[in-house]
């Protein structure tokens, strides 16, 4: 019985965004668009909850002739997609209407926007639930295609440039990942013979120990560079600040909050297979090394920013780097911390982008130097920005503090994978702390400068309550709450997921 319900839930998961996307093309009024959007998102979240329950009670779920495979890790990612997606839909209710009202978006282009948005969502869900690494690849490439136009939605010169760079860099990266998938297939075929299920995660996990280490190493390098481009790890990150800065706020929130997470998920998935054949030190040191480099370079780049959306983009790179360090270091605390960090970062970053979007609408500039006194102009958004900023700076009582502490502790106890020795550990901890200090100072200097101070006279004051604020409240409460309490389903989910990744 439950199996069928779960299958239906999976069907809903995939159909809801698809149907909503197609429907969006046919609707005239923006009101209906939002209704469809919220409705499909509600269905999505409900389906996710159902699936997560099943996963918690009965373990991994497969459906549709093993085309779909959902375990704790994927349902955790689904959880992030659901929450951030829901918040995003709520936020778009006020944001897009305001854009239409101000004439920046022609009402008919709204259909396209929602269509693409749903396709983007569909692709991400598909990437998360697909059992086949090949389908996963197709879905992730599809996210690139769906979002290029979303990024360049304003059609300004800069947004076109950002969109083009995004398209080219990510497509190239993803192509490399495809080569990785091919290699993966190549190795599994040698064990299984010519079976069309040879790319399935379930199959691969079963035979992982028999796979050839050499091929898997090469495959992992390709996959890592490919999906790492999507995650935005230095030095494959170059598209990221441009894209985030130019994308409309809800899109940026989805990119930063969810897409990165899905890409990390793709890396973790293949890592789970590779680690069984190759010593985990190989993938671990790769992850930790790129994590550390991303973290430090992004922290330094944060100092240079004068566009607040770009600044948030660099902060994404920084946090993804940190999560990678957690995964790379491994151990129960490290992996748990990494996953937890992914969750928290998704919430914090989307909250930050929502607030930034509101500010952008009101101040009509993305220059940090021209934004002052948000606190007196729009208290709600100011609070959201402050909360997000403090959370991103990893201050308590926000959840990122907890996950960052877990990662640092893991680094301190387990040390770097590979032969780095104790000096490497203390060196990396010092680097981590120093760079986090730099990031902290850079981020909060900008954000406090925006929030406080006297507002420019030209900016109208006051912030009436709107649906969009619901999303701010939701994410803010989550950020604060997760620092103190992890609800037991979520805790179980995280525990199971980290067990899957070898952090038993």
């Amino acid at each position, binding site marked *: 019985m439950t199996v069928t319900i779960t299958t239906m839930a999976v069907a809903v998961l995939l159909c809801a965004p698809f149907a909503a996307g197609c429907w969006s093309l046919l609707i005239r009024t923006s009101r209906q668009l939002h209704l469809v959007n919220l409705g499909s998102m509600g269905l999505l979240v409900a389906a996710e909850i159902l699936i997560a329950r099943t996963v918690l009670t009965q373990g991994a779920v497969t459906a549709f002739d093993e085309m779909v495979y959902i375990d704790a890790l994927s349902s955790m990612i689904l959880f992030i997609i659901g929450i951030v997606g829901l918040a995003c839909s709520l936020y778009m209710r006020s944001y897009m209407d305001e854009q239409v009202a101000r004439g920046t978006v022609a009402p008919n282009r709204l259909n396209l926007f929602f269509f693409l948005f749903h396709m983007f969502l569909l692709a991400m869900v598909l990437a998360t639930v697909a059992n086949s690494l090949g389908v996963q*690849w197709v879905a992730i490439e599809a996210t690139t295609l769906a979002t290029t136009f979303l990024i360049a939605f304003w059609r300004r010169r800069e947004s076109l440039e950002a969109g083009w760079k995004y*398209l080219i860099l990510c497509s190239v990266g993803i192509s490399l990942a495809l080569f990785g998938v091919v290699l993966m297939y190549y190795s599994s075929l040698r064990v299984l013979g010519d079976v069309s299920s040879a790319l399935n995660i379930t199959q691969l996990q079963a035979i992982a120990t028999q796979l*050839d280490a050499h091929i898997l190493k090469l495959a992992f390098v390709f996959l890592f560079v490919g999906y790492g481009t999507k995650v935005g790890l230095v030095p494959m990150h170059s598209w990221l600040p441009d894209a985030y800065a130019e994308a409309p706020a809800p899109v940026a929130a989805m990119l930063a909050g969810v897409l990165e997470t899905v890409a990390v998920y793709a890396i973790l998935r293949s890592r789970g297979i590779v680690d069984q054949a190759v010593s985990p030190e190989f993938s671990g040191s790769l992850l930790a090394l790129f994590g550390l480099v991303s973290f430090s370079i992004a922290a330094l780049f944060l100092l240079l920013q004068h566009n607040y959306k770009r600044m948030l983009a660099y902060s994404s790179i920084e946090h993804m780097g940190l999560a990678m360090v957690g995964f790379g270091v491994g151990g129960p605390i490290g992996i748990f911390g990494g996953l937890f960090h992914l969750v928290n970062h998704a919430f914090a970053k989307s909250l930050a982008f929502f607030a930034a979007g509101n500010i952008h609408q009101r101040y009509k500039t993305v220059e940090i130097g021209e934004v002052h006194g948000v606190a007196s102009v729009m208290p709600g958004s100011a609070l959201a920005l402050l909360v997000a900023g403090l959370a991103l700076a990893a201050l308590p009582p926000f959840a990122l503090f907890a996950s960052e502490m877990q990662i640092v502790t893991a680094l301190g106890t387990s040390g770097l994978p590979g032969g780095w020795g104790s000096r490497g550990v203390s060196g990396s901890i010092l680097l981590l702390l120093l760079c986090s200090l730099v990031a902290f100072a850079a981020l909060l200097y900008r954000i406090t400068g925006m929030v406080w101070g006297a507002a420019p006279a030209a900016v109208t004051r006051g912030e009436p309550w709107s649906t969009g604020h619901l999303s701010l409240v939701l994410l803010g409460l989550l950020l604060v709450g997760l620092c103190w309490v992890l609800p037991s389903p979520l805790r179980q989910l995280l525990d199971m997921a980290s067990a899957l990744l070898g952090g038993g």
Partner: protein
Amino acid sequence: MPWLTPHVGAQLVDLGSVMLLLTCFAIVAQRRLSACVDLFALQSVFLAMTATLVAFLTGTRHIYIAAALTVAVKGFVIPRVLRRVIERLNVTRELVMNVNVPASLLICGALVMTAFFITRPIISFGHLLTRNSLAIALAIVLIGFFTMIARQKAVTQLIAFLVMENGLFLGATAATYGMPLIVELGVFFDVLVAALIAGIYTNRLQDAFDSVDTSRLSELKE
């Protein structure tokens, strides 16, 4: 056909792969954009032929479908789109290059060697039929990648990207006798859409920047 022993088959597949590689070099050496497009179409046809050969030799049915799609999409549709774009944009040659032709050719040669070097440990396990194709596929991917770096016009970059895709397809066909069909179809769909989107983009870039020279796209920095 009795003369088509596995050994001969393997040699034929190798020949096809090498033809693909040679067209790659030709694209690297070619400055005229329309010629590049033609070469790409030619390469795609070679690819389809190789794939058909593999399909025939191994009796894998779905590779026929993939081969047919390759001819249709990469041999006709995409080159057509690209020619349109070139006509509309009124650019015919790649005037300035980041790396000049002789150097590019040398580097590409080095890349081929690198590809063989990298794949050597795993090639030995390979099927007799496709021993070298994996290495050649990697070489084509790397050359495509390098061409994207070396050339400035958006159209050339697009062609180079498609060359990479061809390399990937060769790898998939040669090394693994084709991916599962659904994956193949998905990949094709993605490539097609990507090419179309890029085509649309070049138009918009032309409108916004009066150029498809991607080196002009450097307003966003830091």
